[in-house]
């Protein structure tokens, strides 16, 4: 026994061994906790089998994927996921633009412009997003009613039912699918080509030339893309037709509108709310990053005779980008999660559709896990993408 204690005391004298012991204890505690949770979860029904059954409810916004109430609940769920991705993607792009402009504006010497940016940040950032979503819904409903809808020839219809724009619609045959796949290939080919040419230019240190004209990699890529895609379009016998919006009266004299690409007030409300809300945070990030650069950079740019615009786009922003991207990623993640707040207006994204399914099926827990899983995956994709960008930006800078 005493030998054992002696051994133990020598064993425990090492920091490494003690750490090992602490971790073991900690892990055992965590394991107990997890075991408790799992045992409780096992008492509940956890299958998603009811997702196979007919959904039975309609969804107002379907995009890319056709959905009718005869489809399964899975189908309804994916329609919701697509709607989430759609609004988040557009909102991320627009919010970045708005935030960058406003961030620069915050530091503008034009007092009017910087005041607008200041008021924008202070007013919007300090009120809950939920109020803003409802606010934008009310604003979008103030568009002209369908009886007074604005039309521009037969190309655009503007009413509070939605803004309709001309759109390319796949013709009713397999060619349209083939075309999409071919298009994807063409995009990849052009990217590879432009990347290769740019790289070659970097290494050789001289321009690539055809008939004495300097050919830039990006230019060549664009050119190749245009040629290939146009020829593919005609080879496949025009797989897409132009879908023009129309405003018409039915037999009862009531106005209806259909066709084209639809930009609905609900989508607009959630999009505007997300863009304008997230924009304030991006504004502050951009402002902070620019301010953190030393003043010498701006002065150097000015002494080179660059205009304000040039010094901003060529000198300041590219440098600021390095410290912008990590916090920006967080804002993108927040934006995606915040899109779930559109439950309060009628935009059927992932969260809202899941709630309807929960309500119709009465099995909440598995649906909840599914929601969690989906949002985690979306976050992961965004993080991966931003990480990729971050690596590129830091490398170019270095």
């Amino acid at each position: 026994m005493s030998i054992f204690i002696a051994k133990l005391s020598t064993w425990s004298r090492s920091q490494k061994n003690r750490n090992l012991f602490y971790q073991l204890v900690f892990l055992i505690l965590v394991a107990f906790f997890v075991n408790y949770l799992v045992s409780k979860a096992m008492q509940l029904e956890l299958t998603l089998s009811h997702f196979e059954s007919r959904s039975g409810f309609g969804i107002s916004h379907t995009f890319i994927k056709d959905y009718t109430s005869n489809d399964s609940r899975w189908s309804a769920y994916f329609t919701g996921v697509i709607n989430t991705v759609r609004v988040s993607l557009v909102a991320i792009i627009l919010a970045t633009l708005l935030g960058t402009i406003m961030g620069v504006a915050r530091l503008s010497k034009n007092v009017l412009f910087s005041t607008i940016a200041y008021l924008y940040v202070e007013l919007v950032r300090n009120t809950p997003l939920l109020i803003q979503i409802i606010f934008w819904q009310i604003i979008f409903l103030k568009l002209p009613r369908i009886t007074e809808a604005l039309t521009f020839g037969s190309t655009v219809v503007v009413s509070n039912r939605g803004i309709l724009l001309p759109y390319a619609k796949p013709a009713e045959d397999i060619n349209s699918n083939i075309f999409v796949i071919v298009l994807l290939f063409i995009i990849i080919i052009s990217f590879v080509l432009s990347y290769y040419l740019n790289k070659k230019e970097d290494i050789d240190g001289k321009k690539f030339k055809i008939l004495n004209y300097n050919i830039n990699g990006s230019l060549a890529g664009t050119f190749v893309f245009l040629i290939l895609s146009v020829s593919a379009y005609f080879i496949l016998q025009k797989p897409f037709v132009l879908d023009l919006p129309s405003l018409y009266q039915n037999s009862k004299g009531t106005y209806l509108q259909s066709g084209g690409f639809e930009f609905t007030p609900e989508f607009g409300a959630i999009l505007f709310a997300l863009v304008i809300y997230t924009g304030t945070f991006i504004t502050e990030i951009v402002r902070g990053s620019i301010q953190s650069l030393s003043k010498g950079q701006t002065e150097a740019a000015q002494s080179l005779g660059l205009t304000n615009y040039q010094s901003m786009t060529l000198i300041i922003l590219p440098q600021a980008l390095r410290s912008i991207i990590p916090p920006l990623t967080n804002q993108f993640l927040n934006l995606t999660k915040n899109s779930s707040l559109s439950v309060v207006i009628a935009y059927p994204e992932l969260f809202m559709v899941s709630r309807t399914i929960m309500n119709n099926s009465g099995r909440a827990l598995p649906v909840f896990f599914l929601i969690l899983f989906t949002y985690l995956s979306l976050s992961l994709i965004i993080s991966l993408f931003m990480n990729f960008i971050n690596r590129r930006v830091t490398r170019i800078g270095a």
Partner: protein
Amino acid sequence: MNQQLKWAYNTFSGSFYNTFITFISLVIFGFIASNLVGFISTSEWAVVTENKRLLLVGRLPQGEEWRAWSILWISSFLIFSSLNIFVKPSIKELIFISVIFVSVCLIFITQDALFNVIIFTTLSLGSYLFAKYISQTPYITIFRKLLVFMWISIIPLMFLVLIIGDGPKPTLWGGFLLNIILAGVAISIGFPLGLLFALGRASQLPAVKIVCTIYIETIRGAPLVGWLLLAWFVLPKFLPEFWNLNETSVVIRAMIILSAFTSAYTAEVIRGGLQSIPKGQIEAADSLNLNLYTKLTLIILPQAIRVVIPALISTFIAVFKDTSLVFVLALTDILQVGRIIPEQDPQFFGKALEALSVVAFLFWIVSMALSNLSTRVERSMGIGTR
């Protein structure tokens, strides 16, 4: 005169771009101003004035209002004496604060609350002046300590006031009171927890690190409405049965979820602070042979938290705004009240904008105050570190 003209020319014009920007800004200002005037001139505020009580305290039973008023009095004493002692506002800020103050009084005032509003006003002004007086006497150090102590204990104090002597059930707390309480609890529980998780994530023990990281990333991975939904119908099934924990009130469950949520977000912020500490600091502490506890409390944390105070305050503002999401749990916070009162009476139908703008205003005041505080801290730290 000539100089001012030159300044104006340089600021608003001078180049094509700048003139263009000035023009655009003017258009935006004009558009917003005209819409604002249009809204104010056509709005009817009966929907708000009739429902002041509901907006502020929700369904707190008649005869229990004194609890809410006492909370208001305590906080007004605290806020206004701290204003003088710690913040020392400039004249411009003082004017701004008085404008806000008067509008808050206007919102609170009703015929039967006249007396209470008078107490509120005198107490606020009185404590500001009292603090001004005391700062010239030697008692200032004690008073400072008292204030700090009161700030730390304000949330338990609020609870005490609400619960003492057979207080109303938590489910009856509502309106703005509920938002304040939820945010207060979430922050005062979430912050220390977040600190622990941040340290855990920065720990050198892999097991601790992994578990903390999974916790933080899972919570941050899904939206708060989702977690609140979980609290609504799943959490009771997971809570242990002893002490009837599985029958805890929805408000408590909302507090649990909000605290967990706050802890994950603060952990991330604090982690940033921990990473910013130069390695030399830790090595120096090690070479002094300090133990883990002293090293943390004396060397690492004071520096780490100092750096992230502004970010922490923005997280707290976000939490405060996020308390408006408890509508998922069928709690009537101020925003939910704002959403349902237009349904209450046919004469209020379609008056949503009026109701919502008052709600937005109240949220804005509190968040604005906090964010100004954060800017001040940022500025004062900048002077200190450089």
